[in-house]
């Protein structure tokens, strides 16, 4: 059903994660050549410098 929500499958919250953790995750998605999740497919579109900026923004933008 559309109400399906398996916590293991769904999108994890990134709220409260620090910039270092976010950077490491984003760079890992980008570096993984065989990964085919949505996050892998998105992360490949950004440079490492851009991923750094995104991580900083997400860590600091929402408190």
């Amino acid at each position, binding site marked *: 059903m559309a109400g399906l929500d398996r916590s293991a499958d*769904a999108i994890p919250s990134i709220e409260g994660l620090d910039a270092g953790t976010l950077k490491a995750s984003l760079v890992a998605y980008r570096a993984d050549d065989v990964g085919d999740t949505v996050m892998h*497919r998105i992360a490949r579109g950004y440079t490492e410098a851009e991923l750094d900026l995104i991580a900083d923004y997400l860590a600091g933008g929402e408190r």
Partner: protein
Amino acid sequence: MTRRGLIAGLSATGVLPLFSEAQTGSARIVVIGGGFGGATAARTMKALAPRLSVTLVEPRETYVACPFSNLVIGGMREIMDQGFRYTGVAATGVEVIRARANAVDPTTQIVTLEGGETLSYDRLILSPGVDIRWGALAGYGRTAIRRMPHAWKAGAQTVLLRQQLREMEDGGTVVMSVPPAPYRCPPGPYERASLIANYLKREKPRSKLVVLDAKDGFSKKPLFLEAWSERYPDHLEWRGASDDGRVSRVDPETLTFETDFDTVQADVANVIPPQKASQIADRAGVTDATGWCPVDPVTFESTRQPNIHVIGDAAIMAPMPKSAFAANAQGKVCAIQVARLLAGQAPQPTVLANTCYSYVGAEAAVSVVGVYRLGGTAISEVSDAGGISPLAAAPAIRQAEAAQANHWFGAITSETFG
């Protein structure tokens, strides 16, 4: 604006008030259209520069979201779950005016509402969505939508199509026609086909869906074809353009679809008609001969009228698709660029992503991702990023993407509407 409203605005959009009144002045921003693009742009504008006057013009009290509306047609979701009110947007300090915008004068920079009231603007953000291109499909006029619902704007049409499917006797034929690109939600027809076939297989197993398509290629085609052959071999037949799928005329009286060489009889008919930018865009003078709105790829300012920005489905953003995800992202970027322009700062190129999930069954979904660089004179897709879900994947992958789709819907609607 109340402090509570400001905090609500910040927590919802994650945007900090980066611009002071000294930078932006007390400019008046008017946003026309309260969908995923316009509501997002209005909220982001207010969050970035709380002292700006931001007015959102939207005729509906309750917005009915198109994403997930195919689940309503497929009998897996209720239409009430698609409705979003503007109380959350108003709580952020945006003035929400419930009215239709009848005219825009780009010279005097005045919007006239249906009741005759006027709003003057320094910058106008148009996010009006699509209208049906009446006359583009022979036989499909304004009265045809009762007998042959399009259900391409969610609401009463969605409910009507679902009701017609429910009332159809087992053994009936459902026919859907799909227009040439561009149109709102490129993979939408194929998600809908999947969910109608799923409904027929479950509830009316002697019935069948025939899809008559003006194209041969479409979004996520390999994934849809795989899902259809696995799940609906007896319930879904797709005919592309090279297989005489292009519909040239419909008849609402007889429920027939004419192709070059065939006439297809339906018991339930769903016409997804050719579309264009909503009429207010014509009246503002921002559409071109294609019926859509050309814009600068960095600021989304119209190339035809100054101080009018166009975002969402109405704008020419290709290769970005006409999707809620894209409109939401464009809404945020548009607000940032407008604030920068007001503050005398140069607009900045951006990199945007889009993800479209499509259900192919009750607990199964597939996705397509694109990443786009918006700069200089064009929007370009990053070639070594994006792409579709893996083919021949384990059921758990499809289930996981269905769960992600569900989370995505919750996140984007709460970010847009509060």
